[in-house]
C-alpha cells in the first residue's frame, strides 16, 4: 500500500536536483529584489509552482503593480483549476485531507502519476509531490539564506531538461489517434499564442482542446 507513495517518490527522484536548483534560484532572486527570505519561503510553500512565482517576483522587480504581478501568476496557475477538476475523483477522505493532499498537484507530479485515459494514481501523485515540495521549499530557503551557492540552473542545462521531461511524459500519453491529435493541437495553439498572449495564456488555451471534444459529441 505504501509502496505506491514510494513509487511516486522514486519516479520523481531524477527531478529532485532540478527542484532544489530552481528553488534556490528563486530564493536568490527574492533576496536580491528585496522580497525577503521569509516571504520567498512562504510563497514556495503555498504557491508551489515555479513559473508563477518567478513571474510574480519579476513583475514586481520591473516596477509593476501588485495587480499586474498577481494577474501574471494567476494566469500561469489557472491550468491547475482544470487539472484539479480532472483529478478530483482520485482524492478521498475528509475535506481537510483532500485540501492538503491537493496542494501536491504540480505539473510534474500530475504528469508522472497518469495511469491512462486521463486518470491518475493518487498515491503516486502524493509521493512525487512531497519529494518536489521538500526540495523546492528547501532550495528556496537555501537560496535565500546562503545565496548563490548552487549556481545558475540554466548554466547546468536544467532549463533544457524540463521540456525533455514533459516530452517523455507526453510520449506515454500518445496511445491513439485522439490523443495524438490533441497533442498536436495543444502544442500548435501554444506555439501560435506564445508571441502575442501573456505568459500562461498559451497553456490554458491549449487545454481548450478538451472543450472542442465536449462539443463534438
Amino acid at each position: 500500500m505504501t509502496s505506491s507513495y514510494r513509487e511516486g517518490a522514486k519516479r520523481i527522484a531524477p527531478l529532485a536536483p532540478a527542484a532544489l536548483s530552481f528553488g534556490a534560484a528563486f530564493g536568490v532572486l527574492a533576496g536580491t529584489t528585496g522580497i525577503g527570505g521569509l516571504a520567498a519561503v512562504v510563497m514556495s510553500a503555498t504557491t508551489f509552482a515555479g513559473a508563477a512565482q518567478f513571474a510574480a517576483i519579476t513583475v514586481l522587480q520591473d516596477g509593476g503593480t501588485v495587480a499586474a504581478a498577481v494577474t501574471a501568476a494567476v494566469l500561469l496557475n489557472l491550468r491547475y483549476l482544470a487539472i484539479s477538476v480532472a483529478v478530483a475523483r482520485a482524492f478521498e477522505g475528509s475535506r481537510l485531507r483532500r485540501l492538503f493532499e491537493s496542494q501536491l498537484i504540480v505539473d510534474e507530479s500530475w504528469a508522472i502519476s497518469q495511469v491512462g485515459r486521463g486518470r491518475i494514481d493518487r498515491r503516486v501523485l502524493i509521493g512525487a509531490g512531497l519529494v518536489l515540495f521538500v526540495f523546492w521549499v528547501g532550495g528556496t530557503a537555501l537560496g535565500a539564506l546562503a545565496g548563490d551557492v548552487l549556481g545558475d540552473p540554466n548554466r547546468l542545462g536544467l532549463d533544457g531538461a524540463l521540456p525533455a521531461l514533459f516530452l517523455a511524459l507526453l510520449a506515454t500519453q500518445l496511445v491513439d489517434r485522439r490523443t495524438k491529435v490533441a497533442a498536436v493541437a495543444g502544442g500548435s495553439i501554444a506555439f501560435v499564442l506564445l508571441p502575442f498572449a501573456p505568459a500562461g495564456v498559451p497553456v490554458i488555451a491549449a487545454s481548450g482542446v478538451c472543450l472542442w471534444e465536449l462539443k463534438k459529441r
Partner: protein
Amino acid sequence: MSSAWVVVLLVGAFTVAFKAAGPVLLGSRPLPERMSQAFELLAPSLLAALVVTQAVGGKQEIVFDARLVGVAAGIVAIRLRAPLIVVIVVAALATALARVAF
C-alpha cells in the same frame, strides 16, 4: 504590509484554491461521462503545450536557443527507450554543452 507580501499572500491564496477546487468541492462524485471523456485529452494537450512553452518560450516571444539542443538529445534518448532519469540528464548535459559551445 509591503507590496511583496500582498503579492505572496494573494498568489498563494489563488493557487491553493485552484488546486483544491476539484478534490474539495467535487469530492469523489463522478464527472459526467462526456466530461471525463473530454478530460482524457487534458494530459496530451497540456503536456504538449508545456513542451512548447518550456522549449521555445521567452518573454512574450519565441526564442530558439540551447534548450532546443537539449530537447533534440532528449528525443533521441526517448526513442531509444531510455529511462526518465537518462532522458533528463542527457537533455541537461546537451543544453549545458550547447550553451558553452555557442
